[in-house]
C-alpha cells in the first residue's frame, strides 16, 4: 500500500513543470521559448533541491499516488535517495547547459525564430520532463514512456546542428534505442502477465525465479544496456555523441544514458528476485569491466577530442556495472558501500563528463578544429576551460578530492571486502588508462601554440558555466559523508 507522503506534491511539480514549460515554449516560440525554458529550469532546480532536502530530512522516500488511484490499478510517483540525487544532478547539469547555450542559441529581441534555437529551448525542458519521469516513475510501463521521451529528446538534441554527417549516426542511434525500448516493453508485458501489476513497489519481494520472470529480466536488461551503450552494444554512442553540438553532447553523455541506468537499478534491485540477480550480476560486471578496458584504450587512441571524450563515456559507463555483483553479496556493509559508490559514480560522471564535453566544444570553437595532436596554445587562450577539462578528467580518473574518487574508492573497497578483488584490478587499470588519455589532452593543451595557430578567445560566461560543472564534480568529493546518506534512503 503506497500512501502519498508529505511533500509528495513536489514530485508532481517536478514532472509537470518542465512538461508544461515545454508545451508553452512550443506554442510561444522564438524568444519566449528561451525565457520560458530558462525560468522553468531554474525553478526545476529549486524543486529538485526541495525534494532532496525533504528526502534527506525525513529519511524515507517521498511518494505521490496519482489521482488517488492506488496501484496496482493506479500508479505512483516515488522519490527515494537515488531518484532525488539523480534529479538534483539533472537539474544542475541542465541549468548549466542552458546558461551555456545562451551563447550559441540566443534569439535577440526582434530576430526571427531559428530552427536550432527553437528546438534547443523546447527540448531542454523536454529533457527535464523526461528525466523526471524516468527518475520518479514507479510503474514499469510508465517508465517505458519515459524512456521513449528520453530517446526522442536525445535524438532531436543531437541533430541540432542539422549536419548531414550527423543524420546517419543519429539514425543508427534511434533504431538501436527503439529496439532496446521494445525489448524492455516485451519484458514488461511478461511481468504483467506473471504478476498482474507493473508497480515496482508491489513487485518488490513478490517475484519468483521462474521462466517468465527470468526471460523478462533478460529482455529488459538487454534493452536497457543497449540504451546505456554497454560494450558490446556501444557502437552507436561515440559517433552520435561526438558529432552532436557541445551543449547536446554534454546532456547526452551526462544525463540521457543515466535515465536507463536508474531503470536498470530499479529492475535489478527491486523487481528481480535475489537468485536471478546473483546469477546475472557477474555477467553485467564482466561486460562493464570489458567496457572500461576497451573503451579507455580506444579513447587513448582517438585523434579527435570529442570522439575521445565520447569513448571515455563508454568506459565510464562500465564502472556503473561493477556494483551489480557487489550489491548481491551477502556482506551488508559492503553492499551498502557498493550502492553508494555506484550511484556516486553516475552523479560524478554526469557532472564531470558534461563539463568535459562543453570544454571540448569551446576548444573546438576557439581553435577551429579538435585534433588532439594540435591543441597547443589552448591553455593560454582559455585557461579556465582547460582547467575545467582537467578537473573533470581528475574526477574520471578517480583522484581525490573529486567525486569520482569517492565513487571508485567505495567500489574498490566493496570489491575487496566481498572477496571479489578482481574488480579492483579493473578499477585500477581503468584509472591508469583514464589518466593516460586525460593526460594526453591536458599535456597537449598546455604545450605552446604551433606556429600559425590562431585561437579565438571564447566568451567568459560560457567558460564559467563549464568550470562550475567541473567544480561541482570536485565538490562532490569533499561533501561530508552524511550528505551522501541521501543516496542510502530507500536503498535496496
Amino acid at each position, binding site marked *: 500500500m503506497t500512501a502519498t507522503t508529505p511533500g509528495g506534491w513536489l514530485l508532481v511539480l517536478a514532472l509537470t513543470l518542465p512538461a508544461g514549460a515545454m508545451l508553452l515554449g512550443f506554442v510561444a516560440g522564438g524568444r519566449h521559448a528561451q525565457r520560458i525554458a530558462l525560468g522553468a529550469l531554474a525553478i526545476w532546480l529549486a524543486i529538485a533541491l526541495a525534494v532532496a532536502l525533504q528526502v534527506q530530512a525525513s529519511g524515507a522516500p517521498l511518494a505521490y499516488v496519482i489521482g488517488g488511484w492506488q496501484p496496482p490499478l493506479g500508479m505512483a510517483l516515488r522519490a527515494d535517495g537515488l531518484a532525488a540525487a539523480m534529479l538534483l544532478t539533472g537539474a544542475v547539469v541542465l541549468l548549466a547547459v542552458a546558461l551555456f547555450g545562451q551563447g550559441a542559441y540566443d534569439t535577440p529581441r526582434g530576430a526571427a525564430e531559428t530552427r536550432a534555437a527553437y528546438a534547443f529551448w523546447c527540448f531542454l525542458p523536454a529533457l527535464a520532463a523526461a528525466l523526471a519521469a524516468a527518475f520518479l516513475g514507479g510503474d514499469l510501463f510508465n517508465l517505458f514512456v519515459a524512456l521513449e521521451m528520453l530517446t526522442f529528446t536525445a535524438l532531436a538534441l543531437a541533430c541540432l546542428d542539422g549536419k548531414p554527417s550527423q543524420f546517419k549516426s543519429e539514425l*543508427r542511434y534511434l533504431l*538501436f534505442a527503439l*529496439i*532496446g525500448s521494445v*525489448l524492455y516493453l516485451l519484458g514488461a508485458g511478461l511481468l504483467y502477465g506473471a504478476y498482474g501489476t507493473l508497480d515496482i513497489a508491489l513487485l518488490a519481494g513478490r517475484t519468483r525465479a521462474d521462466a517468465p520472470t*527470468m*526471460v523478462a*529480466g*533478460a529482455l529488459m*536488461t*538487454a534493452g536497457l*544496456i*543497449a540504451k546505456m551503450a554497454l*560494450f*558490446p*552494444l*556501444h*557502437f*552507436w554512442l561515440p559517433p552520435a555523441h561526438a558529432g552532436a553540438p557541445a551543449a547536446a553532447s554534454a546532456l547526452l553523455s551526462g544525463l540521457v544514458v543515466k535515465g536507463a541506468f536508474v531503470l536498470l537499478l530499479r529492475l535489478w534491485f527491486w523487481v528481480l528476485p535475489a*537468485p*536471478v540477480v546473483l*546469477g*546475472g550480476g*557477474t*555477467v*553485467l560486471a564482466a*561486460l562493464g569491466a570489458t567496457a572500461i*578496458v*576497451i573503451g579507455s*584504450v*580506444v579513447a*587513448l*587512441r582517438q585523434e579527435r577530442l570529442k570522439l575521445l571524450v565520447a569513448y571515455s563515456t563508454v568506459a565510464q559507463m562500465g564502472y556503473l556495472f561493477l556494483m551489480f555483483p557487489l550489491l548481491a553479496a551477502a556482506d551488508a556493509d559492503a553492499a551498502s558501500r557498493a550502492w553508494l559508490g555506484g550511484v556516486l559514480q553516475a552523479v560524478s560522471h554526469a557532472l564531470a563528463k558534461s563539463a568535459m564535453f562543453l570544454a571540448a566544444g569551446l576548444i573546438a570553437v576557439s581553435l577551429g578544429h579538435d585534433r588532439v595532436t594540435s591543441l597547443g596554445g589552448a591553455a593560454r587562450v582559455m585557461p579556465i576551460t582547460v582547467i575545467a577539462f582537467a578537473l573533470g578528467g581528475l574526477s574520471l*580518473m*578517480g*583522484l*581525490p*578530492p573529486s567525486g569520482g*574518487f569517492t565513487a571508485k*574508492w567505495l567500489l*574498490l*573497497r566493496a570489491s*575487496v*571486502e566481498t572477496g571479489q578483488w578482481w574488480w*579492483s584490478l579493473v578499477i*585500477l587499470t581503468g*584509472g*591508469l588508462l583514464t*589518466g593516460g588519455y586525460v*593526460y594526453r589532452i*591536458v*599535456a597537449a593543451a*598546455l*604545450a*605552446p601554440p604551433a606556429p600559425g595557430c590562431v585561437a579565438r578567445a571564447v566568451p567568459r560566461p560560457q567558460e564559467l558555466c563549464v568550470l562550475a560543472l567541473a567544480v561541482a564534480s570536485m565538490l562532490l568529493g569533499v*561533501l*561530508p*559523508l*552524511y*550528505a551522501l546518506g541521501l543516496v542510502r534512503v530507500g536503498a535496496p
Partner: protein
Amino acid sequence: MSLLLPLVPLVPLAMCLALAWPGARARVGGVLWAAPVPALLVALLVGQVPPLVAEAGGLRLTLLLDLPGALLLGGAAVLWGAAGLYARAYLGHQPRFAAWWLLTQSGSLGVFIAGDLGSFYLAFAVASLAGFGLVVQDGTVAAFRAGALYLLLAVLGEIALLFAFALLAVGALGDSIAIADVVPPLATSPGGHVTALLLVLGFGLKMGLVPLHVWLPVAHPAAPMPASAVLSGAIVKAGVIGLVRFLPEEGAPAGWGSALAVFGFLTAYWGVVAGLAQRNPKTVLAYSTVSQMGVIGAVIGMGIVLDIGASGLHAAFYALHHMLAKGALFLGVGVALATGRGARRWVLPLALLLALGFGGLPPTGGALAKAAVKDELGADLVALCAALSAFGSTLLMLHFVRRMMDAAAEAPDGRATPGLLGPWLGLGVAALVVPWLLLPWVGADVGKMWSLEAVAPVLLGAALAWPWRRWADRVPELPEGDVLVLARRGAAPREALGRAVLRFETMFRPWPAAGLSLLAVVLGLLAAMAG
C-alpha cells in the same frame, strides 16, 4: 597549542587565495617568504604540540607532529622561506608563479604533519600536482616537455598510493583511517605485499628511486632556480616522510626492508654514475638528489632489516641536511651565473664546503648526517656500500662545482644583489650549522665522523676529482632521464597492443554485429540468471 597545526598548510593556502584579489596581489608577493613561518614555529615547538583530531562528517582527520616530522617540517620551512626571499629577487613579482608556489608549499609542508590517510593523501597530491606549475614556469618548450613528464609520473604515483591507501583502509580494524591504526596490521594482512609494493612505487616515484627517477633530472633543472631548490630540497621529502610513516620497522611485511635497501644503494650509485656524465650543473645537482635519496632509502630499508626503532628519525635528520645543503647549492648556481667570473671568489668556497659535506667531510653538517645513520649503514658489507656511496658523492659534487664554475665563466660578469646573496648564504650556513644544533635530539655519535672509514671516502673522492676533470669531457653526455630512452623503445609493442584492441572494438561497430551482440546478450544473461 594543537590549533597551531592547521596553520601550517592553511597560511600558504590563504595567501594563495588572497592572490585572487588584485589589491592584495602585490602585498602577498612581497611577503612570500613569510608563508612558512608558522611551520617553522610549530616545528620548534615539537614535543609541546598535542595531536589535533577533528571529526568531520564521519571522517576523523588527524594532524600530529613527531620528531622526524618536526625535523623535516622545520628544514622545509627554512628552505621555503629562503627560496621565497630569493625568488623575489630572482623573478620579480609574478602572481602566477606565486600562486603555484604557495599551493605547492601548502601541500609540501602539510604532508609532514598529516596523521591520517585522507589528509596525507590530500597534502601529497597537492604538493605533487601543483609542482607542475613550478616546473613549467619558464614557459619554454623544454619546460613544458619536462612538465608533461612530471605530471604523468606524479599522477601514476598518486594512483599507486591511492590504491595502497585503499587497501590499508580496508585492512584496518574498525573505521579509523589514522596512520597509526592502519599501518600496524600491514605486516600480517594478506594483501600486505601488494600494499607495500604500491607504497614503495608511490613514494619511490616521489623520491626518485631507480628506475622511477627519470622525471627528476628532467624536471628539476627545467624550473627556475628557487623552484629547483624547493623541488629538489623539499618536495622529494614527501616521499621520505611517506616511507617513514607507512613502512615503520615493525609494520613492513617481511623482505621489504632488504628490497628497499638494495634499491636504495642501486639508486645511490646510479645517480653518481649518470650524474658524472652530465654537463649542466643543475642536472648534476638533480642526479645528486637522486643519489642522496637512494641513501635515505637504504637507511630506511636497513632500519627495517635491523629493527632499529630510531631509523625514521635518523633518515629525517639525514634528509634535513640534504634539504638545506641542496637548496643552498641550487641557489648558489643562480648566484654564480649572476656574478660570472666573480663567482670564483664569491661562490666557490661555500659551494666546495657544502659539496664535500655530502661526502661526509668533518665537521660539516653533512658529516654529522652521515654519522647519524651509522646505526643503519655501519656494519659489514653495508658499511662498505655506504663508503662507496660517500666516495661517489664526493666525486659527483666536485664534478658539480667544476661544471658550475664552467657555466659561470661563460656568463657575463655582474654583481649579485643582496636579495640573491642573503638567502643563499643563510641557507648555506644553516646547512653547516643546524645539524649541530639539533644534535641533542638525534643523538649521533660525533666521534664517528672523524673515523678513518668516514673520512677516507672523501679524501679518495677529492683525489680522483682532479683526473675526472680531464675525462669528464670525453664521456659522452647521457641524456637527461637516462633510462627514459628504454621506455621509449617499449612503445612499439604497446602500439601493437593498442592497435589490436582497436581492431577488436571495430569488429562490433557494424550494425549486424551489434544486432547479433544484442541477441546474444539476451540469451547470455538468461543463461547466467538461470544459473
